[in-house]
């Protein structure tokens, strides 16, 4: 439409914005081929390219594209178990994917490269724009163009009022509409015209939005570097003390030190869930709740908290979340010598929503050594000869495990997962017909093990809870950043920068219609419809009621008062 209107504010257009190649360089008169750039010019050219609007756009689209693989390929940061399963299923693709970092896309070098470039582009866009904006803030609206009728939106009318009267009214009308006016003495050519501009805050909103993106990223980075996530399964009745060795899994940020752990302890007093016994959600549970007793610090007062989903417990900088539950069968195990070697409750891990759970029992002190591995059915039923569990509620708890002896790696000192039985040096006990020997138990039952290994008694079942414990510093910064970004976004989208000019001329001759008034309006953001604005101003100038027109301002979200 016109002069400066469509130029993306501040972004350098790569076509016109390439650094001009200087004819002679500093090192004297060495002849240079056309288009050849010195190192400084090359640097400047590169900077211009990186900070150009077009590059920013391409980087944005690249970022969107680069985020896709992470939603399809399992991510180790989201679900490590899925990653392991995927790797087992695709042995040939795995090395390639690992080299490309496809199992942790959002930490990978190429993903980081894209958003770092985008940030550089962002900074390169913010800095010059801020300077331009600060200058514009102090500046005055530009003088009226010589020929207002050449602007796409203009109106002309004649009146018999005095030139000065019309000009004065124009100033008053525009001031009332919160336009900034060009001082009358700012230019001689402007003597009989009024120049006005409004909507300065649009660019402020724009800048605020872009700066806020950096703030959000800073908050995100702080959380990633100084925070941690840890998960732990705790039996009902057990106590958790917040130190590194207590966690089942621990994922610290690279700058997180163990000293940063808040000292606190808590005990899981109780866990309860409402199991649905009818209806479409039958077999699933609701209203999970776990009563905790916790102590902030080593000798803080004892407090209690009802830990539920969506209601995390905050202790100091640390948040404790309830994210899972399951069953721990309590077994009394006697070894071949007749000694009780374990009375522990062992957490079994649910395999699916029916809470069919898998677990391993390792009586470490048993002589001779043995281990058990198998399934726990909360509500055991034999359906068509197959053992199944009909619901996740522990209505008919049943254990079915296989028995292993030999070297189970209990004593070799290496760290062992409590959920995996090391069977490399072990042999499975079989029945006479060659099928695996099974330990099938319901609460209260005892089974004598063959080969004089001892006995196993199923004492009962108790729940466990899985809690996620995390410190996320910087989350407040990120939140403030994103809220500011939204505020800036609203400003940059809905504040309309406009210029209005009124020129008054004394036409030849005297009497009625001797004064000619030209009014023109320009929307500087592009896409704005200023006809309504123009009509309103003209109506005010002529002292008539504004034409009733829906959406008179031609815009959303702004009133012209």
């Amino acid at each position, binding site marked *: 439409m016109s002069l400066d209107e*469509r130029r*993306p504010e501040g*972004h350098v*257009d790569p*076509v016109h914005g390439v650094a001009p190649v200087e004819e002679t360089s500093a090192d004297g008169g060495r002849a240079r081929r056309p288009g050849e750039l010195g190192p400084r010019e090359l640097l400047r050219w590169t900077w211009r390219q990186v900070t150009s*609007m077009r590059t*920013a*756009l391409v980087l*944005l*689209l690249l*970022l*969107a594209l680069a*985020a*896709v693989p*992470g*939603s*399809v390929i399992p*991510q180790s940061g*989201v*679900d490590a178990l899925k990653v392991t399963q995927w790797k087992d299923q695709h042995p040939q693709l795995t090395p390639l994917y690992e080299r490309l970092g496809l199992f942790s*896309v*959002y930490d990978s070098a190429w993903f980081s490269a894209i958003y770092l470039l985008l940030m550089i582009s962002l900074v390169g866009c913010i800095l010059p724009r801020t300077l331009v904006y600060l200058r514009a803030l102090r500046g005055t609206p530009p003088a009226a163009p010589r020929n207002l009728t050449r602007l796409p939106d203009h109106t002309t009318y004649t009146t018999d009022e005095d030139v000065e009267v019309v000009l004065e009214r124009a100033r008053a009308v525009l001031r009332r509409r919160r336009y900034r006016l060009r001082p009358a003495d700012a230019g001689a050519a402007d003597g009989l015209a009024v120049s006005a501009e409004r909507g300065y805050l649009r660019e402020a909103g724009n800048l605020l939005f872009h700066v806020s993106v950096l703030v959000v990223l800073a908050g995100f980075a702080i959380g990633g570097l100084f925070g941690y*996530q840890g*998960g732990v399964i705790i039996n009902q009745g057990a106590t958790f003390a917040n130190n590194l060795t207590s966690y089942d899994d621990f994922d610290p940020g690279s700058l997180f030190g163990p000293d940063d752990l808040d000292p606190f302890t808590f005990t899981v007093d109780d866990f309860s869930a409402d199991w*649905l016994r009818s209806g*479409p*959600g039958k077999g*699933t549970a609701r209203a*999970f709740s776990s009563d905790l007793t916790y102590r902030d610090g080593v000798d803080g007062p004892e407090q209690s908290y009802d830990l*539920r*989903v*969506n209601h995390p417990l905050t202790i100091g900088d640390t*948040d404790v*979340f*309830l*994210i*899972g*539950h*399951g069953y721990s069968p309590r077994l009394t195990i006697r070894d071949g010598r007749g000694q009780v070697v374990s009375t522990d409750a062992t957490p079994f891990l*649910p*395999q*699916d*929503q029916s809470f069919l759970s898998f677990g391993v029992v390792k009586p470490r002190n048993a002589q001779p050594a043995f281990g058990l591995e198998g399934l726990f059915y909360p509500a055991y039923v034999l359906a068509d000869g197959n053992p199944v569990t009909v619901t996740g509620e522990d209505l008919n708890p049943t254990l079915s495990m296989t028995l292993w002896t030999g070297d189970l790696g209990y004593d070799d000192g290496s760290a062992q997962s409590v959920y995996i039985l090391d069977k490399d040096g072990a042999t499975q006990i079989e029945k006479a017909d060659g099928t695996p020997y099974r330990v099938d138990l319901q609460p209260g039952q005892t089974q004598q093990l063959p080969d004089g290994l001892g006995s196993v008694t199923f004492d009962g079942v108790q729940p466990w809870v*899985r809690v*996620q414990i*995390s410190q996320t510093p910087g*989350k407040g910064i*990120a*939140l403030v950043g*994103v809220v500011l*970004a*939204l505020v800036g*976004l*609203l400003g940059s*989208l809905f504040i309309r920068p406009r210029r209005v000019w009124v020129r008054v001329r004394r036409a030849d001759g005297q009497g009625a219609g001797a004064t000619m008034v030209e009014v023109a309006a320009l929307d500087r953001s592009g*896409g704005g*419809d200023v006809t309504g604005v123009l009509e309103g101003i003209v109506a005010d100038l002529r002292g008539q009621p504004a034409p009733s027109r*829906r*959406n008179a301002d031609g815009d*959303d979200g702004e009133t012209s008062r």
Partner: protein
Amino acid sequence: MTDLMWASLSDQAVAVAGVVYFLALLAHLVEWASLREPKEARVAAESSAGAAAGGSVALAERTGGTEERAERVAFFGRLGFLLTGIAVVVHGVALVSRGMAADPNRVPWGNMYEFTVSGTFMVVVMYLVLHRRFSLAWMAPFVVGFVVATLMVAVIWLHAAVSPLTDALNSPWLVIHVVSAVIATGAFTLGGIASIAYLVKLRRGEATSGPLTRVPSLATLDRLAYRIHAFAFPVWTFAVLITGPIWAHEAWSRYWNWDPKEVWAFITWVVYAAYLHARATAGWKGRNAALLAVAGLATLWFNFIGINYFSTSSMHSYAGVISSVASPLLG
């Protein structure tokens, strides 16, 4: 009324709404088809221009036909609009009764079926609200056609029996997060339709006759698309980057976990951010910007429905997909 009655009322209302939308679609199709000049009329007009004698008779016939056609167009346009209005009321009844069917009563946003029924509802509501302000009459067949198709998908593939909310969903943030996301989805859909129309019109050129004359000029379409997107984008930002993370932090312990649904919401956000930038960039405004808007719409609806079938590890997949072992609470 018992919960079961409410549930079947909801199902029936969705079916009725679907049928009435379909009738509205038919009405709008008749409206558009009526815009097409019969071939004989065109031929007659051309020959009348050539032949001096008898030309006036043909011309008279032709103008008579035009008036009749204009009446028919207007009638079916009104009929379609009226039917859409009726359908959206029934559609609303379906949503309310869906919430009443649950025990305890709840907002009807517990699974993909309910999200989809709500999303399509919001598309129609936004269309009706903006109908006069932006002269959206031309959009009718596309909006209604889209809603009919999406409702069919919802009923055939996504339908799930009414069940109580999972614990993770049981939070005030559900209302704020889902309402804003659904409003943005409705607006983005309308904006996307405007952008698609822009691209079609750009390819076919300004038509002087036939159905395409209903579609506004390129400049109007571009501005319309921009305005709707400019409204939807901040709402989407609020839904996805403010309420989403706050709630995720409360329920799942991480405010941003690169969950597939989050990833695609982010992708959608980035694509629409690119659209807003593109409109201000030389060489990108117009066609490329419209292409970006359409790409954004594709990612939006893929995220809404599609991603659940590509990734089972999403904590957002409420379609009864088995949750990960580590967090069985989040069903």
